[in-house]
């Protein structure tokens, strides 16, 4: 899922304080899982903004709402009236949702309440770790399910590098060496032969490095 973190409150306030009406708009999928941008978080943030507006003597009508996902058109039907009546929208979605709203409502300023950070999993409640960088050319089948693109600091494809020490990365002792994890996993799977295979040069044109990507299903 996409992980994000709420921007510092003061930064959010500075973005929106000059509007007379604001809709604080939550997204109840990925960013709700990390408790940063869901409809509940939108309600809380709207409440905090009302308190700040009251304290600073700023006259602002702040409403809050949200939908399941801010990246698909059908979900917006229930919020259409609210968004059409908004002077400005503070979107708690990831960067995708913020842009989607902005595209749908071209004459309405849309502000991001979150910093979108990474694609990751939920290791445990409240702890999210990066696991994928959407490189477009997945090698997980060869590396026992450990991604060298997202989990190796150097994105080495035939690792480890010389900095791997006691299973830790030279960047930080808090970071596991991804290639140590790969070797451990392949050993457990009885597939250490895969480790001996030299991975070819990766086609980075499929990554973001090749420009913004799109994917269209034919005959859909």
């Amino acid at each position, binding site marked *: 899922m996409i992980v994000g973190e709420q921007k510092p*409150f003061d930064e959010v306030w500075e973005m929106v304080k000059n509007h007379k009406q604001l809709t604080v708009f939550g997204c109840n999928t990925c960013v709700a899982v990390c408790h940063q941008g869901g409809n509940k978080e939108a309600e*809380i943030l709207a409440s*905090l903004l009302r*308190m*700040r507006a*009251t*304290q*600073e*003597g700023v006259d602002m009508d702040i409403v809050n709402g949200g939908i399941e996902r801010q990246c698909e058109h059908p979900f917006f039907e229930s919020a259409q009236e609210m968004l059409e009546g908004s002077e400005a929208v503070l979107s708690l979605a990831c960067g995708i949702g913020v842009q989607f709203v902005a595209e749908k409502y071209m004459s309405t300023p849309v502000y991001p309440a979150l910093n979108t950070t990474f694609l990751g999993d939920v290791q445990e409640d409240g702890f999210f770790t990066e696991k994928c960088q959407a490189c477009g050319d997945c090698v997980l089948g060869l590396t026992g399910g450990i991604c060298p693109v997202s989990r190796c600091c150097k994105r080495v494809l035939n690792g480890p590098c010389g900095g791997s020490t006691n299973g830790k990365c030279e960047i930080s002792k808090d970071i596991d060496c991804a290639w140590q994890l790969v070797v451990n996993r392949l050993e457990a799977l009885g597939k250490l032969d895969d480790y001996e295979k030299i991975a070819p040069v990766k086609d980075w044109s499929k990554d973001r490095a090749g420009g913004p990507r799109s994917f269209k299903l034919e005959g859909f």
Partner: protein
Amino acid sequence: MEGQCHFLEGNTNAVKRVKRVKAMLNMVGVDPGRLEFFHLSAAQGPRWAEICTEFTEKIIALGPSPIWYALKKKNESTQVEKQVA
């Protein structure tokens, strides 16, 4: 009491939520001491009364919140505008 919630972890979760709300209150300039959490059981009537008394005294000593003052100022300026009109 702590660890004896009928909802098992309910009061443990509540402690964490109160801590988060205190941080939010601090963010908007409201004294986080205006919100507190106390563990006690339904059988602790006298302790409940004690907590209520002490907390009320604490809030009285703190005085109105900045939000109250801001709302009061806003209402007063609205009334002045009406009178002028």
